[in-house]
Each structure stands twice: as structure tokens, then as C-alpha cells.
């Protein structure tokens, strides 16, 4: 047996290193290391509770408003207030804009360039893919960057700027949209829809969102011009529809009032109960304690702890490691294509990527209906009082999965603030019982080491990791 260390993994958000134990060119076990510590849970302690709205977006430059939304939800929970309808719509639009922009960035800038690697030079699709998707110089980058920048102009209207906005408040949004601005928002959504239909899909969003099985997907993609069909051709040729499976236990907090919360276990959905979450520090450079629910969680550094290999805690749901992300959301929502893909081959590389792109097709039309539902002149922000003593929970979905904030307030100040980010779930280390995290499971059995194809790269990036959130 030999051990290799792989890193730095670029084209992910933040820092990642993976140790692989190999036997005859295959991975026998994997250990995922998040080698950067941020310490935001300590930064928040002792601050005025509303300061969380300015602080938590800075955890992450790519999940920035998801962090804001989780904090605002936790504070609203503590205050006992609910945003008015316009405030809800504005928040959904802000969150959806970030999540979809992230899906786009992931696909074009982070994920697809791996197919342009020289290792695939012999494959029939390689020359075209390298021309289009090579990092920085590929043709696609010059088209996707303006499409992304234009789409994020929604944030200029709705949130002032992106990333790092203070527009999302416990009571709703600070930015009332006028009747005239509603027209501009719809125009921006139409422009983005145009890019997706012409370049990404080569078909209408409605047709893509309506694909209902793996067979229908493959028949649709056959010979079609578009970046999604191009991905499918390369990924199926490499067998990525059958690789990268973790434990097939999925979890979602639910999003936009559209995709329900739930747990996916043994091929069907079950009720999600946040009280069953606990975080384990056995293999993190943090002091040992029995697994704690985040409402009672602690983050205390133990930098020289023996047996530890990462700054990431190990969140577990009822003792199980669970995968989060777009695939989990779409399983809980019962999307027939994702149900079929998972029924065939579990949570594969292809299933994760397809789930993200299906969300693009599903949500852009939904965002148009949200804009139309805004009633200019009616309130965007409810007012409320913060208690001197209290607690709150905010559970939202970032692009890459479930994000939770748990806070308590004492004498008018933040007493405790604990966060579980999506990649904390997906890239968690082993726990006290030695149970590996989802990526650690997904890598077992794959080829790696000298002369191996870059399969590991595809599997790692298929989770769309955000390491800076992981190690908040």
C-alpha cells in the first residue's frame, strides 16, 4: 500500500488537500483535509446580534447571500417576526440569483476544464471540448463571463451589490423595488434565459426541465448542440454516470418554499428533523467532546491533536454522514429525472451535475413569476425588537447544499454562534466511530496515482465544494 497527497485542488472555492491510500492503483481509503482555519464563530461572540448580518457574508465570497439569509432567518426566529410578501419575494430572488450564478460558475469555470486535460487527448470529443472549455483561454469563458455579469445585475437592483450585501434583514429586504425596476428585472431574466437556451442547453428551458428519465435525457442530448449535451457525451464516455457514489443518504433544508426539506434514506424521502444533527470533532484540530447539537456546539482549537487531519468538523444526522446539494434538493422535490438517475447508479458525478443544470432550467421561469408577484408600494421589511435573551435557528439552502446557523443571545449580545455549511457535510472527516464523510466514501475504489486518469478530479469537483465556508 502507498499513500499519496493530492493538492492544491484549484478551481474550487478555497483550499483542499486529499490523502489517498492506494492498493494496486486503486483508492483504498481517502482522508479529506481542509487546511485553512477561519474562526468566524469566535468573531461573532460578544457582538451585537444584528452585526451578524455584516459579518457572516464575509465567511464566503461565493455563498455570501446564503450566509446572510441564514443569519437573517436565525435572527428573525429570535425576534419572532416574518417578512411581508414583498420581502419574501425579494429574498427568494436574491438567493436564487446567487445560487444559479454559482451553478453557472461551477459548470463553466470550475468543472468543465478538467475534460480539456491532455490525458484525454485520444477521446473523440477532446479537441472540441479543449477548444471550448480550457481554463481562461477557452471560447466558453468569453461568453459565460458576460452572461454571468449581466445576470448578477439583478443584485445591483435587489441587494445593492454582490457579494457582501446588507440588504437581507430579519424583517425582509432594505431595498424596495419600484414598478419601473420590475421591468428591468424581467429584462435581465430574459437575457439570461436566452444564454441558457442558446449556449448551455440548445433547447427551451421548459423542455429541459421536463426531461423525466435517464433514457429521455440521453435521447434528447444525442447529436444536440449545446454545452450540456457536450458534457453528457464526455461524461458518459468516461463512465462518470456510474462513478463518485457516496452513501446515498441525502439531506436538504428545503428552499424557496418550492423544494421541500427532507432526508433521503434507502431510496425514499423521510421527515427532516434538525434536532437529530450533531457535530463530531474526533478528527478535527479542535478539542474533543462528545458529538454536540449545534445549539450547544463549541469550536475550540487544538492545533496539535493526535489523529486529527482537518479543520472541518464532522456533522452527522442521526449518526449518519449525509450528502447535501442540488441533487439532494431535487430528490426531495421528486424530480423524475434525478430520481431515475439515482435509482440507476446512486448519487454519481453525472447526477450531481445534471441536478444543478436542471435547477437552472426550473428556477429562471420561477424567478420571472416572483418578479411579477412583487407589489410596488407595499412594504418590503417588517420591523421587530431583538430580545435581550433568546435563541434562533436559520436553515437555508446555498447553491451547494444545506446551510444552518444556530445562535443564542444573552444580555443583548451574541453568546454562541454555530454554523454548519454545505461542504462541512460533504467533505467531513471521519467521526468517533470511524465513519467517513461523503467525499471520503465517494473516492474509494477509484483509480489514482502514477498514470491514472484524472477521475478523482471530476469526483471532487462534482460536489461543487466551498472550502472557505467549510472551515468558517
Amino acid at each position, binding site marked *: 500500500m502507498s499513500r499519496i497527497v493530492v493538492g492544491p485542488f484549484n478551481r474550487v472555492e478555497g483550499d483542499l488537500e486529499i490523502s489517498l491510500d492506494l492498493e494496486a492503483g486503486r483508492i483504498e481509503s481517502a482522508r479529506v483535509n481542509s487546511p485553512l482555519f477561519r474562526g468566524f464563530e469566535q*468573531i461573532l461572540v460578544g457582538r451585537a446580534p444584528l452585526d451578524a448580518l455584516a459579518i457572516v457574508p464575509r465567511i464566503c465570497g461565493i455563498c455570501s447571500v446564503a450566509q446572510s439569509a441564514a443569519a437573517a432567518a436565525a435572527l428573525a426566529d429570535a425576534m419572532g417576526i416574518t417578512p411581508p410578501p414583498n420581502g419574501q419575494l425579494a429574498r427568494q430572488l436574491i438567493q436564487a440569483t446567487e445560487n444559479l450564478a454559482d451553478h453557472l460558475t461551477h459548470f463553466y469555470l470550475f468543472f468543465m476544464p478538467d475534460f480539456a486535460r491532455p490525458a484525454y487527448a485520444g477521446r473523440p470529443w477532446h479537441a472540441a471540448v479543449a477548444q471550448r472549455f480550457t481554463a481562461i483561454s477557452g471560447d466558453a469563458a468569453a461568453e459565460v463571463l458576460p452572461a454571468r455579469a449581466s445576470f448578477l445585475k439583478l443584485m445591483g437592483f435587489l441587494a445593492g451589490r454582490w457579494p457582501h450585501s446588507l440588504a437581507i434583514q430579519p424583517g425582509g429586504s432594505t431595498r424596495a423595488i419600484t414598478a419601473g425596476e420590475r421591468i428591468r428585472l424581467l429584462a435581465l431574466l430574459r437575457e439570461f434565459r436566452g444564454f441558457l437556451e442558446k449556449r448551455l442547453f440548445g433547447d427551451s428551458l421548459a423542455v429541459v426541465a421536463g426531461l423525466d428519465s435517464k433514457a429521455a435525457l440521453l435521447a434528447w442530448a444525442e447529436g444536440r448542440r449545446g454545452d450540456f449535451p457536450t458534457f453528457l457525451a464526455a461524461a458518459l464516455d468516461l463512465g462518470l454516470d456510474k462513478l463518485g457514489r457516496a452513501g446515498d443518504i441525502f439531506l436538504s433544508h428545503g428552499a424557496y418554499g418550492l423544494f421541500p426539506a427532507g432526508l433521503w434514506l434507502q431510496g425514499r424521502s423521510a421527515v427532516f428533523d434538525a434536532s437529530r444533527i450533531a457535530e463530531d470533532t474526533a478528527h478535527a484540530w479542535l478539542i474533543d467532546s462528545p458529538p454536540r447539537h449545534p445549539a450547544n456546539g463549541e469550536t475550540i482549537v487544538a492545533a496539535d491533536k493526535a489523529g486529527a487531519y482537518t479543520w472541518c468538523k464532522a456533522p452527522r444526522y442521526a449518526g449518519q454522514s449525509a450528502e447535501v446539494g442540488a441533487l439532494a434538493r431535487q430528490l426531495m422535490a421528486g424530480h423524475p429525472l434525478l430520481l431515475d438517475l439515482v435509482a440507476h447508479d446512486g448519487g454519481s458525478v453525472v447526477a450531481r451535475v445534471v441536478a444543478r443544470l436542471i435547477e437552472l432550467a426550473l428556477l429562471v421561469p420561477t424567478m420571472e413569476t416572483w418578479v411579477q408577484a412583487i407589489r410596488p408600494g407595499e412594504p418590503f421589511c417588517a420591523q421587530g425588537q431583538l430580545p435581550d435573551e433568546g435563541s434562533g435557528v436559520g436553515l437555508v439552502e446555498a447553491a451547494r447544499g444545506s446551510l444552518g446557523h444556530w445562535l443564542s443571545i444573552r444580555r443583548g449580545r451574541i453568546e454562541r454562534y454555530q454554523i454548519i455549511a454545505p461542504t462541512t457535510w460533504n467533505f467531513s472527516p471521519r467521526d468517533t466511530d470511524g465513519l467517513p464523510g461523503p467525499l471520503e466514501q465517494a473516492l474509494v475504489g477509484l483509480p489514482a496515482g502514477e498514470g491514472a486518469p484524472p477521475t478523482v478530479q471530476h469526483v471532487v469537483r462534482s460536489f461543487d465544494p466551498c472550502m472557505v465556508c467549510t472551515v468558517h
Partner: protein
Amino acid sequence: MKVLWLQSGGCGGCTQSLLCAEPRPLFDELRDAGIEFVWHPALSQASGEEALAVLEACASGQTPFDVLCVEGAMLRGPSGSGKFHLMAGNGRPLIEWVERLASHARYVFAIGSCTAYGGFSASTPGNPLEACGLQYDEQTPGGLLGADFRSAGGLPVVNIAGCPTHPGWVVDSLEKLALEGMSASDLDEFGRPLFYAGELVHHGCPRNEYYEFKASAEKPSDLGCLMENLGCKGTQAHADCNLRAWNGSGSCLRGGFACIACTEPGFESPGHAFQETPKLAGIPIGLPTDMPKAWFVALAALSKSATPKRVRENSLADHTVVHPAVRKGGK
């Protein structure tokens, strides 16, 4: 001009912001100005050993390069070891990589307030991360590289401060250097490029009419001026945020929330709640830059008494409730 980019104790948001550069696609814009990335952790093709080889060749002086861009605070802890951030696949502290690379770079750019001054990473009481900026520890010169550091091109670290940075600040700084060069007179006393830090966020603020009359917002989403009650520091913060739009048409003030002065060293620990204005005897403590207090108080009293009904009523609503009067039949 060859640019090498590293990320450390930060959120990656300055790169995400940079990708929004307009009007041209970022990569086309930079390429046509003769600017190329030697390596960028979020954007480059090369990964793993190949990437480490590129970095090592730059750090040893074997591959010449022009600009080292660093994004994120320098984490010196615990106990000076730098273990809070080790380079993946290599195990050496990032602070060591930055020191080695900075000694060979012609110019060093701090991308964002974390990199320039320490930012939020340095704001935990007692600073257990031992976080700092490249050449500052909040307002105090020093930081990782030391107050006397000058890169081979003769400049201290160029601090493109902001949390995040505006894409235009980074693109214009790189292009200024590539096309015209940069000198100490292009920077202010905190090392920020004057082309954007020579303005105040207040300049071009869409709430200026409310400011003039001291018609102040009292709660989130009100249209009025955010200075008196809701913590806005636009009259003290150095940046051109309301002259150079964010994401097409935005800015913090246009988004309806306070400027928290994210381009200033130490902005992360203001000593008061971010969204509240600290006051003494009812008067905001942080008065506009360059304005004597007595003038401000006198002017505020006068303008408050002269506030038109339209401005006063709109300031406390989230949409225009009284439109400007239309005068008919005359000039």
C-alpha cells in the same frame, strides 16, 4: 505582465467580484492589455503537483513574474507557526510562500481589506489567528512583510482595499501598472490607489437630497439618509462606490443599507453596532471628513428646519409617497 495570485485567510469574494468585470469579459480585457495569470487558484487549469511546480519556480526566482496578488489575511498563528493555513499538497505555511514570492515579485498587490489590513480575521478579541495584512496590522504599519518592505519595483504593497473589492479597482490597477507604471504618488497614505480612494462613498450618493436636509431614515428600507441613525459612514469612507456602479446599477446606499467603510483599515471593529450611529448628546460622533463639528451642527439645524414636506415624508417611507411638484405654464 505576468500575475501570480494566491488566496489565504479570506472568503474568495474579491475573485468572485472580479469575474463581474464589465463591460468586456475579464479574460479578454486582461489579455488585450498584455496581462496574463501565471496561476490563479480559482481559475487556472493547472492543479496539484503541476501547480506546485509553477509556484516553486516563481518562489525560487527561476521564473520571473511581475505582480504578486494576494487575496486574504495572513494567518501567523498558532504561536507564529502559520499552521492555520498550510499550502495544500505541500504542507508549508502560506505566510512562508508569500514571503518567498514577495521577495521576487516586481510589485505586490493586496487584494481586499483582509490582505491589506487584516480584516475580519484579525477582529476576534485577542486575535487568536494572529492575523494581519501584508504590510499593516489594522492601522499600524508592519504586518507580515514589515513597514519597510519595498518590492523590486520600488513600491510598498499596493492596497486595493474593499470588502469585497470592486472589479474595476483591480482591473484598473493592473492595467495602470501594465500600461503606464505606478509610483508612490498614485497611492494614498494607506497605500490605496488614489484613482478610487481619492473619492468618498458620499460622492454621487443617490440619497444626497436627504443628506442635504438631514431627512434621516429611522428603520431598514426607509429612503432617507442613513448617516444620522443607521450607521452610514459614506461621508468618511474613501472609495468611489457611488460614482462607479456595482453590478450594473448598485452600491450599498443604492441597496438601502449603510456604508460600513469597508475600504478603511479596522472597519471590521468599529466599536459600535454596524447598523447604528453612535451619538453623543444626540449628535453623531463620526462627522464628515474635513468638516468642523460646530459647522455641521449649525448646518444640520438649519437644513432640518428647511426640509420640504416631500423630502421629509419620503425619507420615512420605502417608496416615493410625494412626487416632486410639476410646475405648469412657466419657467
